[in-house]
């Protein structure tokens, strides 16, 4: 398959970026989006040009490092997958593909398609944990948890912190990410002790870092590669009211 690529290039955080046009040919339909970019980078290196910087790590959809806003959608035109799991067969032969970095004030571009997502780490540091002394591994089922709660907590825990929710949201809001983390812990008995402090601190940090406000538009839910539901946002709101008003 052949593609025309319009890719955002930017030397560093301060530089003014621009779109560059590239052509790739003979791409296998079974190759992943990142592998296609690898091939382009090989080409660029041979031509003694700077390769394109993009984030990636596991390449199996579990680490949350890959990003890319592809043809107007974070992680491209497939549902429930990360960019590393997106295959070129999802595109039309000869298609022009626009590739942009995540755009948000809280996610500044570092270089080309790489953005600084440490704002998410700061939100986690504000309260997305449980303070326990980590001794030996506790017995399974030592703490009984109802099946439904365990399922909901597991669903929320699937969030890999990729930031597609922020990228997709017209307000660059981080509500889905924060809601997933708050829900994950709020649903489990271990999370109860610090529940009130946690939700207040994480929401305050999220606001402080310059993410937008939720307007219940649902773009996050539509684009989340882990299909985190906005019911988690409603749960976080409930937790927040409970913590702030009681």
């Amino acid at each position: 398959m052949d593609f025309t690529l319009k890719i955002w290039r930017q030397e560093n955080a301060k530089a003014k970026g621009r779109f560059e046009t590239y052509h790739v040919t003979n791409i296998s339909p079974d190759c992943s989006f990142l592998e296609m970019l690898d091939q382009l980078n090989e080409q660029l290196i041979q031509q003694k040009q700077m390769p394109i910087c993009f984030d990636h790590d596991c390449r199996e959809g579990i680490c949350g490092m890959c990003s890319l806003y592809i043809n107007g959608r974070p992680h491209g035109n497939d549902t429930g997958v990360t960019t590393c799991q997106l295959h070129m067969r999802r595109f039309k032969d000869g298609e022009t593909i626009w590739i942009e970095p995540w755009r948000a004030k809280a996610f500044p571009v570092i270089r080309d398609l790489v953005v600084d997502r440490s704002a998410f780490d700061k939100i986690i540091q504000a309260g997305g944990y449980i303070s326990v002394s980590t001794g030996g591994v506790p017995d399974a089922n030592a703490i009984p948890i109802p099946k439904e709660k365990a399922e909901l907590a597991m669903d929320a825990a699937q969030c890999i912190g990729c930031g597609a929710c922020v990228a997709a949201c017209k307000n660059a809001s981080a509500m889905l990410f924060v809601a997933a983390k708050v829900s994950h812990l709020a649903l489990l008995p271990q999370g109860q002790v610090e529940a009130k402090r946690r939700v207040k601190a994480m929401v305050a940090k999220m606001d402080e870092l310059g993410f937008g406000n939720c307007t219940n538009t649902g773009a996050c839910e539509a684009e989340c590669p882990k299909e985190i539901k906005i019911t988690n946002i409603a749960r976080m709101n409930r937790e927040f009211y409970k913590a702030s008003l009681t």
Partner: protein
Amino acid sequence: MAKFFNSSIGKKLMMALMGLFLAVFLVVHLSINLLVLKNDGGESYQKAVEFMTSNVLIKIMEVFLFGSFALHIIYGIILQIQNWLARPVRYVKTNHSQTSFFSKYMIHTGLIIFIFLIIHFMNFYFVKLGWVAIPEGATHRHDFYNMVINLFKNPFYSWLYIIFMVLMGFHLHHAIQSAFQTMGWNHPIYTPIVKFIGVAYAILIPLGFAFIPFYVLYFF
């Protein structure tokens, strides 16, 4: 507490509560408006207007109502400005995500409602207060019946009013279910019902309001 009302979620909760209060008010307003259509020369309508302008409880509610409008609008604008600032560099290829359509235009439909509100006040409320001269055809400051009929006899005014109502419907289409989500009310059984009622409300209320100028214009 101050922290709560300054937080993103706190501000949204205020908007949602104020918005729902406005939505309840619209039902009361519409039920009075529909009396215009009663074939009694405006007698029942004027009676209702008199009640609404003289009752003490209604006066107190009026303060709440203006407060709600003001806060809903102020918070709406503040949140929207913050949301624009949260993405200083826009995408070139715009978002193709599957989302609710009307939710993207809340600030626009909201500001259109605000413009309508100003026109509406010029035509009625300010006349009542004596800030705007009594229009031709009306006998006194509280003669809303004749003011309504005269305005709606004008096809330009009536059709503008109808268009405003359609746009208000767009606002309400997203608003009702959104307010419940903001309040943290999301439930596998009840949320589909809330969404259904929200959409039904967003269609029926503007339809009710829009029916009056239509009727006055073509069947009176």
